[in-house]
């Protein structure tokens, strides 16, 4: 715990704001500090979370500028380098999977495509699916969570049942099932485009209950708070209360759960590509690289280590950053 707690039952946003007021009165600083400011100051002290955040930022830059980066390095993810392959074994010449000044991470067995370029391009797929499916989950989860918490009654009962049901069942299996019954062409998209679209939708769909549950709980407890009561007695309508009083206070928990959801989504995307229901070749993705590395784990172990490390570092960075954001925004959760 970084600051004194005066209201152990309150959660996230409201208590952080109140706590700031108290802390501000104690300290010399008299002027009010916003929640974002307090959170940022806490986050700055958390070295691990900052490291995670920096890595995440770097990965985003790499993903956005992937074609530019591979151009500067002078490698193309789809160009074959068969001259670098030992024709007898099909594995790269040289040690450590053909790592050299030209090919920083080595080359693939058999066709000799540059692994560095494929990893850089693979980051695009991982982050794109990770982020966008989180967006889908946040939209559905916030709308349904607020509806359940705000209106209560049968609306709440129905939405809560659906959330419990979705959370109870093995998601990967259901995602595989849904992805495999989807068409190969739809909405004018084909190939990798369709797969990406379907993956984002399906992963997002199975992720919304995590957000929905939290939002519902927060809405439920905030609905009865004094400031909502005050707004109501001043004659504010339902929608005014919903958008002006409740939603701003839901931002903090939503941010926390979104950052924690992205790494899970990235792992799911990698798993789907590993199993062959993700993006289609020649588009490169980390899960797919690992799946083809299975056949070479004895003769060319570097081929499996590099995409594995890429997934590990990415997911770990997001997890560290997510834990830090949670601790910074939610003093009660600083475990």
């Amino acid at each position, binding site marked *: 715990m970084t600051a004194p707690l005066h209201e152990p039952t309150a959660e996230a946003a409201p208590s952080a704001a109140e706590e700031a007021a108290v802390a501000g009165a104690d300290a010399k600083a008299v002027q009010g500090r916003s929640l974002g400011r307090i959170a940022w100051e806490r986050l700055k002290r958390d070295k691990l979370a900052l490291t995670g955040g920096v890595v995440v930022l770097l990965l985003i830059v790499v993903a956005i500028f992937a074609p530019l980066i591979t151009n500067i390095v002078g490698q193309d993810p789809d160009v074959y380098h068969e001259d670098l392959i030992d024709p007898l074994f099909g594995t790269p010449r040289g040690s450590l999977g053909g790592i050299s000044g030209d090919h920083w991470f080595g080359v693939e067995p058999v066709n000799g495509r540059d692994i560095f370029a494929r990893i850089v391009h693979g980051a695009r797929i991982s982050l794109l699916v990770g982020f966008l499916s989180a967006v889908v989950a946040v939209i559905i989860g916030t709308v349904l969570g607020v509806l359940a918490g705000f209106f209560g009654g049968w609306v709440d009962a129905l939405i809560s049942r659906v959330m419990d*049901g979705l959370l*109870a*069942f*093995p998601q*990967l*299996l*259901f995602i*595989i*099932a*849904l992805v*495999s*019954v*989807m*068409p190969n062409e*739809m909405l004018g998209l084909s190939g990798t485009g369709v797969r990406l679209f379907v993956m984002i939708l399906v992963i997002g769909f199975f992720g919304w209950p995590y957000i929905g549950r939290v939002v519902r709980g927060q809405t439920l407890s905030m609905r009865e708070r004094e400031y909502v009561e005050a707004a109501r007695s001043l004659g504010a309508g339902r929608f005014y209360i919903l958008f002006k009083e409740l939603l701003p206070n839901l931002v903090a928990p939503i941010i926390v759960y979104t950052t924690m959801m992205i*790494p899970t989504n990235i*792992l799911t995307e*990698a*798993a789907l590509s*590993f*199993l*062959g*229901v993700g993006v289609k070749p020649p588009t490169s993705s980390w*899960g797919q690289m*690992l*799946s083809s*590395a*299975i056949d070479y*784990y*004895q003769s060319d*172990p570097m081929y*499996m*280590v590099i995409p*594995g490390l890429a*997934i*590990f570092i990415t*997911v*770990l960075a997001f*997890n*560290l950053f997510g*834990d830090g954001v949670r601790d910074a925004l939610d003093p009660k959760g600083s*475990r």
Partner: protein
Amino acid sequence: MLAYLIRRLFAAVVMLVVIILVVFGIFFLVPKWAGVDIATSFVGKQADPASVEAVRQKLGLGDPIFVQAWEFFKAIFAGRTYSGGGDVTECAAPCFGYSFRSEQAVWPVLTERFPVTLALALGAAVLWLIFGLAAGVLSALKRGTLWDRGAMVVALAGVSLPIYFTGLLSLAVFSHSLGWINAEFVPLDESFSGWFGGMILPWITLAFLYAAMYARITRATMMEILGEDYIRTARAKGLKEQVVIRKHAMRSTLTPLLTMLGMDLGALMGGAILTETTFSLPGLGQKVLDAIQNQDLPFILGVVLITSLAVLIANLVVDVLYAVIDPRVRLA
């Protein structure tokens, strides 16, 4: 107690019906909305038009959707006879579907593979419960110490590593480089030691992931409970610290974990797809991968259905256990 059990049982039956309808929806309604020809996806894309047409008739895809749903539902309890295209295919109860592509009923294939999956899940569960709970409880009690930090770093790494990567790494190191373990799968009835040796790496790999998750959750739950008033009361009335931890804190920490264990085990009954794929274990999960690669949709359907039922049963068992452990539940 009896009223509680009857209520839970009733809820489970309702849930069973809902699950079957949802699975029907995923495989028959969603493709229809998305504009996919269901018959084609059931026989594979290379099939000739005549056999696609035969399957269309056999599945009754021309019938109203309610009739189709009812046939699908009935088949699970009473079996089903598919007729069309001049021949008749029998599928005995419980009919979890029929693969027209490989010309076999789904259920017998699944039951044949089930023991491998069961052994993988149970063995791993023993390991992850021992290590996950121990690490979590110790971390909560020694909060902030080097042990706590070390354990939590390992746990965070554990939940960030894809299981097929740890699996491949362990294969490369322990089986290939060091040669300690022969990682080939050997059926149990051939040789016990061979079977056991082949299962060690899968067990450890799967257990590592879950132990990491359980350690994180156990630690968080335990720390929350240690802050509760009744723990203070227990200490205030002079109980030994050991008794406070064992009788008061541990008991409340374990009840939510029981729910988690029930759900996780239930879900794993459908096969740890990634683990089984990495280690080539012939369980249900590997069948899912085969089915993806061969476009043999009925097997995916079958595994989804069997897993859902396993989750349902596991939840029911947990509910009953809750009533035994926790008197508050019984009386509610």
